[in-house]
């Protein structure tokens, strides 16, 4: 029943994002329209992949850092990506892929720094320091970004900001293909860590005594979740709330076993983002709302309703 509802929602969300849009395409011409094939279909697929990745990354990170407020972007990646993008523009790096690549490199740099900080106490990765280090690196990157912006020509940097908050308007078959090849690797790593993540909820000592290789699991989950997020931010900017709220909705509906939770978070995140993006494109057409606004407007009330089940 729960799965049926989720799958129906996902299908409806994908169909809606193909059928609806600012340009009126009659249903009879749907299959032959360039707008549909080259804009709407790749955009819907990218929403599914990016939203799903954010949902799974968020669920994994919440279990890893033992904090239900953890969000894929809390660990410094959005700051790093933003800095990368702004640097690329300030240094006049041009080309169609300059921004995504610069953002991805920035996110990877933040990831590396935070990971190194997490190991500061010795050989064991400390999730509490990951969380604090992530917030610190994110703030530092934001400060450098602001410094660059205040020193450079504001007009050319508007692009970087718009792009960071810009959602899925950059979707093309190329981005879909890149993400479709890239995302499955970290996704499989996270799915494979499902049972150890269940054990980790009992604390590291108990998890070890129940047979989990705790250090290996922590490292894999952190790296895989961060690599997913870095790719997501590179192709679609910072889309908030999907990685925070979707895992919680999935937990409240499916329980805490990650074998079930992670697939539900993927499908739920993908469907929510596709649906939100359709609304963002159509509600105020021909203008477009940032999709993060819509994900928050939809996700938070649903979350609030489900919270009643916890009491």
């Amino acid at each position, binding site marked *: 029943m729960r799965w049926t509802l989720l799958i129906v929602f996902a299908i409806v969300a994908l169909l809606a994002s193909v059928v609806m849009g600012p340009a009126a395409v009659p249903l009879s011409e749907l299959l032959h329209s360039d707008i549909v094939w080259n804009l709407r279909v790749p955009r819907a697929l990218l929403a599914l992949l990016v939203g799903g990745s954010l949902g799974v990354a968020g669920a994994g990170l919440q*279990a890893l850092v*033992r904090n239900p407020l953890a969000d894929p972007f809390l660990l410094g990646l959005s700051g790093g990506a933003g800095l990368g993008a702004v640097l690329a523009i300030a240094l006049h790096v041009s080309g169609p892929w300059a921004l995504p690549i610069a953002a991805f490199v920035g996110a990877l740099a933040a990831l590396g720094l935070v990971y190194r900080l997490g190991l500061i106490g010795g050989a064991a990765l400390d999730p509490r320091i990951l969380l604090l280090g992530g917030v610190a690196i994110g703030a530092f990157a934001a400060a450098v970004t602001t410094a660059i912006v205040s020193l450079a020509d504001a007009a050319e940097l508007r692009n970087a900001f718009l792009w960071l908050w810009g959602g899925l308007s950059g979707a093309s078959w190329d981005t879909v293909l890149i993400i479709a090849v890239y995302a499955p690797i970290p996704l499989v790593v996270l799915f*494979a860590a499902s*049972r*150890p993540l*269940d*054990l*980790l*909820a*009992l*604390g590291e*000592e*108990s998890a*070890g*005594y*129940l*047979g*989990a*290789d*705790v250090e290996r699991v922590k490292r894999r989950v952190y790296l895989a979740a961060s690599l997913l997020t870095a790719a997501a931010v590179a192709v679609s900017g910072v889309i908030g709330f999907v990685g925070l709220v979707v895992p919680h909705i999935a*937990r409240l509906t499916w*329980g*805490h*076993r990650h074998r079930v939770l992670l697939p539900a978070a993927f499908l739920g995140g993908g469907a929510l983002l596709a649906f939100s993006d359709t609304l963002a494109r159509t509600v105020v057409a021909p203008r477009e709302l940032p999709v993060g606004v819509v994900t928050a407007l939809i996700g938070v009330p649903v979350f609030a309703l489900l919270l009643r089940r*916890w009491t």
Partner: protein
Amino acid sequence: MIELRGVTYRYAGATRDALRDVSLSVGPRQFHAVLGPNGSGKTTLVRVALGALVSSSGTAQIDGKSARDWSRQDLARVIGVVPQREDNLFPQRVRETVLLGRYPHLTLWGAERTQDQEAVDRALRACDAAHLSDRWLWTLSGGEYQRVRLARALAQEPQLLVLDEPAMSLDLKHQMELFELVRGLVDRQGLGVLMITHDLNLAARFADSLLLLAEGRPVAAGAPAHVLTQETVQTVFAWPVAMQTIDGRPQMIPLRKREESRA
């Protein structure tokens, strides 16, 4: 099973050894209790025995193989551990948490099999917790919660159990029930048990063999009547006591300071 020989361990930055020259051997059908004041090295001993810490000298072996060389998954198939504390990040039901004990027997992608569910049923029954199966963990009383954690360790189908203060903060009836349960597992299922406890009297009543630690050093080891003498207990715990014997086991009664001077 567990075999410690002359183990010494010092935490990084500490000024004295947490364990010094401790030996211990626990096999099947044996109930060993480790006693000692706070900070005497009991929990460190267990961590070294299970390979979570590496001793600076001496050897810690499990089934003849260095504890450190066991993969955590292989180890969890032969030894079930109930640590003193654990967290619960997410709300869980009793059956779910006991099913986690099957982890070391599952394959990476495979689902839980009938035999796993049966092992969970057996473990819950053995701990008199079958009726709790659908309850949320947070609704359990302290005694029920400890029985459920014991059931999770039993679901691992281990040959040996390591229990760290399992009866702490339980009332009399639940303490006695827990010790009876553990003793029954040793006698009826042939499990070996290594238990850390503060309760000298219950350890003396139920265990086959005691190891008394003080500041990381072994003070006495062997049968309860041999270890728990008035003189040893008074020295190690720095408090006057009287000893009595019940069922052939020594039982300790702490004295008021005044009574000692009267005696």
